[in-house]
């Protein structure tokens, strides 16, 4: 096979100097905080996330009413960060549903999510000691087009009269369709996404909302594994650095010293 010449000129791409520095330092900071957590030097704890605590309540209510729980990770492919976060929460929900013998319907739009979801739900049912509760026909692909997926979900929510509607993943314009269908079915709704255009609809129509990063840290919040929580500590350190950059940059820019701004754009 024809190989291109090995090792041409190697250089950082234009305009990517700062991203390169930040990439390396973010990795280092998070790596360090995992190390410190393992050593027991720091013991970070994630603050309460009411939306996640409400999942138990939602599953409990579905069990009482004898109606199913609906869970969707939305439109994204399995490589989408919000879908990955949604999958982490799904394994917890699936386990709770299996324990209480509550029916769980999972919907998604991109085919490559299918094997992951099926494996995850099956695993959760086995972990709960109830493998018979795994029903492959309740894990549904509803086409790869945005609005036909939305129609399918809308139909399922109303037909099955779901008691809990969990919308955690990647959503575009169809967010409100799901939330309204859930409202008409009288379901408890817990939603979460990082898409800034859709959060308003979730905040106004759902009972609990995981805004932006709350969705992504939820997996660590549920598992409470020290290393996972350690990365959240690292994330907060990067947040403080960001705040510092904004404060320093704004002050310098306001007094007319623009080199700092140009340096950030490098």
């Amino acid at each position: 096979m024809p190989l291109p010449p090995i090792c041409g000129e190697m250089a950082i791409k234009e305009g990517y100097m700062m991203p390169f520095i930040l990439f390396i330092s973010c990795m280092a900071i998070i790596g360090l905080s995992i190390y410190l957590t393992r050593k027991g030097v720091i013991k970070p704890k994630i603050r309460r996330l009411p939306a996640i605590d409400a999942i138990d309540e939602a599953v409990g209510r579905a069990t009482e009413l004898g109606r199913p729980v609906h869970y969707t990770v939305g439109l994204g492919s399995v490589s989408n960060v919000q879908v990955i976060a949604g999958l982490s929460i799904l394994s917890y929900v699936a386990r709770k549903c299996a324990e209480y013998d509550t029916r769980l319907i999972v919907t998604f739009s991109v085919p490559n999510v299918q094997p992951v979801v099926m494996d995850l739900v099956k695993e959760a049912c086995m972990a709960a000691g109830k493998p018979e509760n795994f029903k492959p026909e309740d894990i549904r692909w509803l086409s790869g087009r945005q609005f036909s997926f939305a129609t399918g979900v809308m139909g399922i929510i109303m037909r099955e009269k779901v008691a809990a509607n969990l919308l955690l993943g990647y959503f575009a314009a169809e967010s409100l369709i799901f939330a309204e269908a859930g409202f008409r079915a009288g379901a408890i709704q817990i939603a979460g996404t990082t898409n800034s255009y859709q959060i308003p609809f979730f905040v106004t129509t759902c009972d609990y909302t995981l805004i932006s990063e709350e969705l992504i840290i939820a997996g660590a919040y549920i598992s409470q594994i020290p290393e996972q929580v350690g990365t959240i500590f690292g994330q907060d350190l990067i947040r403080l650095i960001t705040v510092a950059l904004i404060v320093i940059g704004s002050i310098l820019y306001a007094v007319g010293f623009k080199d700092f701004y140009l340096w950030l754009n490098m």
Partner: protein
Amino acid sequence: MRGGGWAVQQSEKSTSLWEKLQEIDVRYIYLLVWIVVSIPILKPLGLPLGSISEETMLLYDFIDHLPPRSIVVMIADQGPAAATECQPGMVAIFRHCVEKDLRVLFFASRTEAVPFIEQCMIDVLGASKDHPDYGKLYVNLGFIPQYEIGLSALAANIFYTTTDAYGNSLKSMEFFKDLPTGTAKDWSLAIYFGNSNVDWVVRQVNDPYGCPVAGGVGAVLVSRIYPYYPQQVIGFLTGLRGSAEYEVLVGKPGSAVAGMDAQSLAHLAIIIMIIIGNIGYFVSKRRIGGF
């Protein structure tokens, strides 16, 4: 964050009219929306449009001051869903270009947009490929795949596709005679119609070749286009309202202007509903004694 949804449904049984309105069956709201939007469509009311926004005005002035035979490139990226907002604007701008004797080059960056180009030419010229000026002033390149890659190739070499949408060879057309460079440097304006993103057009046409960019975009895209305005994007039409403004400027009010009546009525209805809902909320709160 705690929102309000299920909790609203669980409130106490109501007695007064205001309280009943609080828990009104949503289907009455749906019916109201349907009626309010239907009336002006069936019988236009001609409500005043208000002042014309700066972005629309700048785009109109820019096109108005282009010398004849300048090249305007129209990038159609509207699917059936976005077409309601973008198509009237595309028709109005094309009409303006025809009046000013400009050369217009169409292409679609998604397959679903191809019929909308055809429709636009038929609306304005009455014919598409059979019009006498087709090939002289107007050319439709059809679908060019792979968004940014396709546009970048076209901007580098206008004969990238070699044939137009109907299979005619480009080299023989009068449209492409006397082009100084054959690249996007010859273009006077590139206009994006659609709802997905405008970044890639600016990146491929404005950054390397300095060709100004404009847009006829859905209202949701406005916040993404603002950072480029007015340096790189010289003007744009915001949703149906922008299209309606352009129709008024061109002097041929069409579907967008009629649509604005429906828009105004619908907004008014929603605001009245919100006010009624709030009055009801305060009345019932006082009755319960929590206020």
